[in-house]
């Protein structure tokens, strides 16, 4: 610690702030989402998921067996204290994210923070939390460098770009081993921070895995994707991996059909393929496409199925992977606050560092939750799900499959 006085002042200030919070019998958490702007659909869906999470924690839900804190009302170790979340819109702007984080910490005196979606906002908002010494749990922001800056107060529950890339490569290797023809891959990624980091990782990892990989980069929010589809048609890869947002992915599926070109298999990297508008718009053109997701509603009677039904009752649609990862991060944070038995940020930080959740305690299909020194969850992982009929079914890894993988995809035929 270079500046001991500042450090001691931080402790003193946070300790002073912690007292009134305990007295009020609620635990305040600040949540930053993109509620307006281009990413508003994702932010709003995530907010609905967090609201469901609050309900699950604050009321008794004995039907959700095994999910930590769900069966009791409130946080037992804090005398049944309720969780209060202050929802904030960061507008996808790094400066607004910083400003609102500051407000949540200094004015609302939140015990911890949750966010963020945009990696750009995650980078600036976590820096403020770091300076003030308040834990920041990241539900969904995938840029690798968020947890590579030596921060002590940033924790990321979600898998990141390199995890996705490893999963795809592993899956394709397994397919190859079963005798399917998987030699060439084309990655189509959009060129904002999401597409650039995920697309780049996939190209790198798949090349190391011995595949012949090509890449097509395009502008997000295209009005016309025929050039990309024609390029794809010329390359004729065995597998095409799409990394992009909703409008583009819907347009791709339509254009592929218009040009009557179907690769053996299409893998969608979450985002656009997981958007609730995807299946109603182009579901019958996209039969058999694979999608990345750590979320699967599972069979009736399971905890995940019950959660999905509750989400549906609130929003009228199924829970998607992105919102599920937000909700999981929120549950992990609540569990840590409960174990800390306090709203003191330093004790919550310690509890987060000691987090060790098993797969059975999670709603998402991670191998567990355990943070390394950088704050990254080392047990984060993902499934592949496949569009069969009107629903996605989990197909890989086999241990979690709810349906048999169909290969090749059948698309509109």
């Amino acid at each position, binding site marked *: 610690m270079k500046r001991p006085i*500042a450090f001691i002042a931080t402790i003193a200030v946070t300790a002073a702030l912690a007292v009134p919070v305990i007295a009020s019998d609620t635990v305040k958490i600040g949540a930053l*989402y993109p*509620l*307006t702007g281009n990413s*508003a659909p994702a*932010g*709003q869906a995530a*907010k609905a998921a967090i609201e469901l999470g609050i309900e699950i924690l604050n009321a008794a839900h004995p039907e959700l067996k095994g999910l930590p804190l769900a069966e009791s009302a409130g946080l037992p170790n804090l005398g049944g204290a309720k969780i209060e979340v*202050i*929802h*904030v*819109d960061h*507008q*996808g*702007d*790094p*400066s*607004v994210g*910083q*400003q*609102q984080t*500051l*407000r949540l910490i*200094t*004015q609302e005196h939140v015990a911890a923070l949750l966010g963020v979606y945009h*990696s*750009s906002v995650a*980078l*600036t908002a976590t*820096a403020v939390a*770091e*300076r*003030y010494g308040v834990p920041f749990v990241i539900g969904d922001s995938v*840029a690798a*460098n968020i947890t590579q*800056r*030596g*921060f002590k107060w940033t924790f990321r529950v979600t898998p990141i770009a390199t995890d996705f890339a490893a999963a795809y490569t592993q899956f394709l290797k397994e397919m190859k081993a079963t005798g399917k023809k998987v030699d060439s891959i084309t990655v189509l990624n959009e*060129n*904002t*921070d999401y*597409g*650039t*980091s995920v697309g780049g990782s996939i190209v790198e990892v798949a090349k190391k895995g011995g595949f012949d990989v090509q890449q097509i*980069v395009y*502008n997000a929010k295209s009005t016309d994707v025929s050039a990309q589809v024609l390029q794809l048609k010329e390359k004729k890869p065995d597998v095409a991996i799409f990394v992009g947002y909703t409008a583009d992915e819907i347009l791709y599926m339509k254009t592929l059909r218009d040009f009557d070109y179907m690769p053996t298999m299409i893998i969608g990297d979450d985002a656009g393929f997981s958007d609730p508008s995807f299946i109603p718009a182009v579901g019958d053109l996209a039969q058999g496409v694979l999608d990345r997701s750590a979320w699967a509603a599972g069979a009736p009677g399971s905890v995940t199925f019950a959660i999905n039904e509750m989400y549906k009752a609130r929003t009228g649609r199924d829970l998607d992977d992105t919102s599920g990862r937000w909700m999981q991060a929120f549950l992990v944070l609540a569990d840590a606050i409960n174990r800390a038995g306090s709203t003191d940020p330093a004790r919550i930080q310690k509890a987060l560092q000691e987090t060790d959740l098993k797969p059975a305690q999670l709603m998402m299909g991670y191998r567990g939750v355990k943070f390394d020194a950088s704050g990254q969850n080392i047990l984060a992982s993902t499934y592949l799900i496949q569009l069969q009929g009107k629903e996605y079914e989990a197909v890989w890894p086999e241990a979690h499959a709810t349906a048999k993988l169909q290969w090749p995809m059948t698309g509109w035929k």
Partner: protein
Amino acid sequence: MTRWGWLPLAAALLAYPWAVAGSDSAAFLQDMGALVLLAAISAAAWNILGGYAGQISVGHAMFFGAGAYMPLLVYQHWQMPPLLGVPLGIAVSLVVALVVGFPTFRLSGHYFSMATIAVAELVRIVVGNWDFLGAAIGLQGPARARGWYDLIFRSAVPYYYIFLGVLALLLLVAWQVQRSRLGYYLRAVRAGERAARSLGVPVRRYKLYALMLSAGFTSLAGALYALKTGFVDPDSGLGILVSVQMIIIAALGGAGTLLGPLLGAMILVPLQTATNTWLGGSGSGLTYIVYGGVIMLIARFEPGGLLELWHRQVTARLARPGEVRHAA
């Protein structure tokens, strides 16, 4: 504004961080104060070209971006203090201003505006695909201060006074410009380019001077933004909204006036923050309905900017002759 009328304003600005220090939300209000000053700097810089000379640039984001990128670039690649990138950013933006100024100054009115939009978008797209400049992912500053020279402070107060210093310098320069031959020439250009030329004003040369001055200070604003935020990406540094924000603030307060941009920033930035803080969490989009509605109404009922309203109300009531103002 009377001769000493600016004194109370200066005193209020100097005292602001202390005045709010006792408040419940001191840190937040001080931070907002710094953001107001930053917005005022950008808008006042834009005002030199867009206000005095009447050349409506919708592409000033390229200068802002040059200023914001360079400090973080020298850190990202060579671990140098971001501060060292500031003069570099100004130099780059002056070069860009020269390169862009020569061809676009042949254009006037809306053609000039559209050309500046196109050039700025071009720059944004190119930077967004250029790995050395961080591409779409952007550039970061140091996560923690390695020493005072990294200019990373927990409190916003040091930023506030740095920004205030820069704003004072800029307003001083703008005031000198207003009184100098440059200022008269620029106003002549705004009133009518052909007439100005026929009176012997070297129009293109003086427009270029105004652009260079404007670009230099805009890039300084960008640099201050990057130092405070510690991050820049193509949208936050070079997006069209960055340019539009400068225009709106200047126009709101009163383009072509000395204090209009400051007044615009003092109204618009708190308005943005307040609508987002109070209405943003609901996620209904009400933030922008209110924000958009307010600027629309101001344009509808006070098209010359709010400073004009001030002059009408206050100066007229005090029955003192106001500073000679030129119709925009």
